[in-house]
C-alpha cells in the first residue's frame, strides 16, 4: 500500500499533497499558538469554514475518480457522503450519553420525545469509535458495492446510471426524513458534545479535525493519483472512452467500474464523517439530489479528470458562496450562476484543465519551435474537438 501510494508521488500529485500537509500543520498552529490579536492568528471562524471546504473538496475528489476518469456521472454521491456523516453522527449522539435534555443514558433526545422505548438494533455498536469509524467506510462502501454490482452487471450506463444514482439518493432522502427510520427525521442528529473525550467545540478539537481533513484530502489525492498513474488508470480511461471496446480486449469492465465506485464511495464516506463534527449537524438534506449535482458542478468548474481540479472547484465555488451570501445576499445567485455559465463558455476544461492545457500548448509550441519545423507536431485532445458546424 505504502509503495503503491509512494508511486503516486509525481510532478502533479506531490505539490498538492505537500501544500495540504503544510496547511494541516500551519493552520492549527496559527489558530492555537498565536494570540487572537496577532495578525497571523487564524480565527475559529476560518478554521471551521475551511475545514468544511476541505471535506467538500474530498467529496469532489471522490466524485472525480469515477466521473473524471471512469465516465460514471454519479448524481448521487451525496448519499455516500451523508451515510459516512450519519455513521459519525450516530457515534457523536451516543457520546452525549445522559447529558441529553431528558437525561436518558442510552436514547438520544429525539427518540425520547417520540416515545421510542429502546435503542433500535442498528444503533448498537456506535458507542465505540472504532466501530463507527469502520462503519464510515463500510456503509457507503457496501451500498456502493451492492448498487454498483447490479447496475454495472446489467450494463446500465450514461444518463440511465446517472438517473438511478439520483433515484438512490432521493429515496434515501425520503427515507431519512421519516421519523420512523430512527435517524431523527428532518432535524437529523445534532447537539453533539464531544468526540473521543474531547469537547467538540474546543479549539484543539477543531484544529485536530481540520488537520485530519487536510490529511484525508491529501490521501484522497494520492490514492487518485496512484490509481490513475497505474495501468488500471489507463483501463479506467479506456472504459470511459470506449466501454465496449475495452470488453473485447478482455477487461471485466463491470469489475473495473465497481472497484472505482466503491473506492470513491468510501472516500466520500470519510469526507462526510469529517464534515459532521465540524458543522455540528447531519440531516437528510445532505441526501438532496441538488447537493449531489453541486458536487458535479464543483468538479466541472475546477476541471474534471485533473488532480487539483476538484479541489480548486470545491474551494472556489464554496468560497464564493460564503462570500457572496454575505456581501450580496440578494444577488449572489446571479453571480454564481454567471460563474457557471462563464466557466463553461470560456474555460471549457474547467479552471485547472484549461490552465494545464494552456501550459502544455505553450510548451508544445516552444518544443516545436526548437525542433524547427518538425513534420509531425503532436496534437492534443483539444485539437480533436470538432469545429462548430457553421
Amino acid at each position, binding site marked *: 500500500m505504502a509503495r503503491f501510494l509512494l508511486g503516486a508521488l509525481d510532478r502533479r500529485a506531490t505539490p498538492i499533497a505537500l501544500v495540504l500537509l503544510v496547511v494541516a500543520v500551519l493552520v492549527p498552529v496559527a489558530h492555537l499558538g498565536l494570540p487572537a490579536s496577532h495578525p497571523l492568528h487564524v*480565527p475559529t471562524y476560518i478554521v471551521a469554514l475551511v475545514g468544511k471546504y476541505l471535506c467538500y473538496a474530498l467529496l469532489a475528489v471522490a466524485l472525480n475518480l469515477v466521473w473524471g476518469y471512469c465516465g460514471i456521472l454519479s448524481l448521487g454521491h451525496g448519499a455516500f457522503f451523508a451515510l459516512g456523516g450519519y455513521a459519525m453522527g450516530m457515534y457523536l449522539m451516543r457520546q452525549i450519553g445522559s447529558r441529553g435534555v431528558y*437525561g*436518558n443514558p442510552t436514547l438520544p433526545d429525539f427518540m425520547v420525545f417520540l416515545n421510542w422505548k429502546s435503542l433500535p438494533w442498528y444503533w448498537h455498536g456506535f458507542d465505540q469509535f472504532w466501530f463507527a469509524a469502520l462503519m464510515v467506510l463500510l456503509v457507503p462502501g457496501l451500498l456502493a458495492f451492492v448498487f454498483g454490482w447490479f447496475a454495472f452487471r446489467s450494463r446500465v450506463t450514461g444518463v440511465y446510471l446517472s438517473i438511478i444514482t439520483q433515484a438512490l439518493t432521493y429515496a434515501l432522502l*425520503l427515507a431519512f426524513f421519516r421519523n420512523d427510520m430512527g435517524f431523527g427525521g*428532518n432535524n437529523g442528529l*445534532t447537539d453533539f458534545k464531544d468526540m473521543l473525550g474531547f469537547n467538540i467545540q474546543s479549539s484543539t478539537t477543531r484544529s485536530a479535525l481540520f488537520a485530519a481533513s487536510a490529511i484525508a484530502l491529501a490521501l484522497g489525492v494520492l490514492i487518485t493519483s496512484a490509481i490513475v498513474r497505474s495501468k488500471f488508470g489507463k483501463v479506467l480511461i479506456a472504459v470511459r472512452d470506449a466501454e465496449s471496446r475495452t470488453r473485447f480486449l478482455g477487461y471485466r469492465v463491470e469489475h473495473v467500474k465497481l472497484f472505482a465506485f466503491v473506492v470513491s464511495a468510501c472516500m466520500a464516506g470519510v469526507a462526510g464523517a469529517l464534515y459532521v463534527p465540524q458543522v455540528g*449537524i447531519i*440531516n437528510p438534506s445532505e441526501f438532496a439530489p441538488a447537493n449531489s449535482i453541486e458536487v458535479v458542478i464543483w468538479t466541472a468548474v475546477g476541471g474534471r479528470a485533473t488532480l487539483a481540479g476538484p479541489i480548486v472547484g470545491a474551494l472556489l465555488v464554496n468560497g464564493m458562496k460564503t462570500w457572496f451570501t454575505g456581501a450580496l*445576499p440578494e444577488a449572489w445567485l446571479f453571480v454564481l450562476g454567471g460563474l457557471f455559465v462563464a466557466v463553461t463558455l470560456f474555460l471549457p476544461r474547467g479552471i485547472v484543465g484549461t490552465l494545464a492545457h494552456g501550459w502544455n500548448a505553450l510548451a508544445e509550441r516552444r518544443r516545436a519551435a526548437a525542433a524547427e519545423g518538425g513534420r509531425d507536431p503532436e496534437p492534443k485532445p483539444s485539437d480533436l474537438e470538432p469545429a462548430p458546424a457553421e
Partner: protein
Amino acid sequence: FDGAAAAQDTIKVGILHSLSGTMAISETTLKDVMLMLIEEQNAKGGLLGKKLEPVVVDPASDWPLFAEKARELISQQKVAAVFGCWTSVSRKSVLPVFEELDSILFYPVQYEGEESSRNVFYTGAAPNQQAIPAVDYLMNEEGVKRWVLAGTDYVYPRTTNKILEQYLKDHGVAQEDIMINYTPFGHSDWQTIVSDIKAFGSAGKKTAVVSTINGDANVPFYKELGNQGVSAEDIPVVAFSVGEEELAGIDTAPLVGHLAAWNYFMSVDTPENDEFIEKWQTFIKNDKRVTNDPMEAHYIGFNMWVKAVEKAGTTDPDKVIDAMIGVSVPNLTGGYSAMLPNHHITKPVLIGEIQDDGQFDVVWETPGLVAGDEWSDFLPESKVLISDWRAPLSCGNFNVETGKCGGKGM
C-alpha cells in the same frame, strides 16, 4: 471597510433568513420586516444613542450554511443579536453556534417545543399556544368527534401530532377515530389523501382535519380540497402553518370557513395593528402585501430586545439575556406579551376562518394570554421538565422529579 471606529457608533443586528431556496418563500418577508423595524427604531433615535445597522445574509435554505452564516454574523460581523431561522432544523443547526459564541437568537416561528436554550428567545408559538386551543375549539364549538391529523413528515408535525393524539385520547377520543397521515415536503398530488379524508369523514361523526402541512404543499392541498368539494361545513380543516402569506397564492373562495390557529391575524382590528399594516405596506411599497403571525413575532421580539438593551444599558449578550426575562411589550392584538423565564412568551390564541378575500375572520379567541410551554405536558418524558433561566436555577431542562438539570448531565 468598517474599522473599529465605525463599529463603535453603530449596533449591528444580524438577520438570518433564507432569501433563496425553498424557504425564501416564507423567510424573505421576515427579513423585510426586520429592516423596517430597524429603520423605524433608527428614526426614533436608535438605541443607546447609536444607530442600528442591519446585517443581512442569505443562508439559502441550506442548513449547514445557516450555522456558517451564524458564526460569520457573530464572530466576524460582531452583531449584538440575530433575528432569524424558520424551520426547526435551521434552528437546531445554529443552536450550538449561538451557545458556543454566547450570542442571542430570536426565533419567530411556531414550533414543536421540547427545547429551551439560554441563547434563544422563542417568540413564535409553542404547541400549547396553537394546537391545543385549536383542538379545544373544534371539540367544543363544532362538536368534532373524529380527527384527521395530516402533516408533512418532519419533526414539528410529528411532535405536534404526538401531543394532540395524547390530548385527544385524554378527552375520550377512540383510536379508530384518529387518522394520522404524513406526506413528504412539497407534496403536490393530494387526490388520494383528500378522498381518503372524505371517506374517513363519512362515518357519521363530525370530522375535522388538523393540518400541520408545511408551506409549499398547502396550495395544492387546498386546491384539491376545493375541487373535490370538501367544504368547511362538512369537514373543516384547521391549519397551523397557513397564514395570510400562504393564502395570497390561492383563490380562497372555495375555502371559506376552513380555519387556522395563530396568535395574530392581519384582520385583527386594533390601532396597533392598523398602524403596523400601514407602515409595512408603505415600507414595502405595495398596498396589497399582507402581514402574518411570524412578522408579529419579530415585532414583539425586536421590541423586547430594544427594551432589554435599554434596561441593561448595554448590548452585551449576557446582560441582555438576563434583562430580557420579564420584559413586556405591546403585541398587535391589543394586549401585552411578556418574556417568560423559559424564554418563551405569553400570547393570545386566535382561531380564524378563511374569508374569500384571503383574510381570516377571528371566530374565537382564548380569554386571556397563554404562556408558552416548552416542555409539553402531554409527553411522558417531558412532563417532568421545566425551564427557568433565572438565577439560581438557570436551567433549560430541570427535572422536577429528580431535581437535576438534565442538559448539564448532573
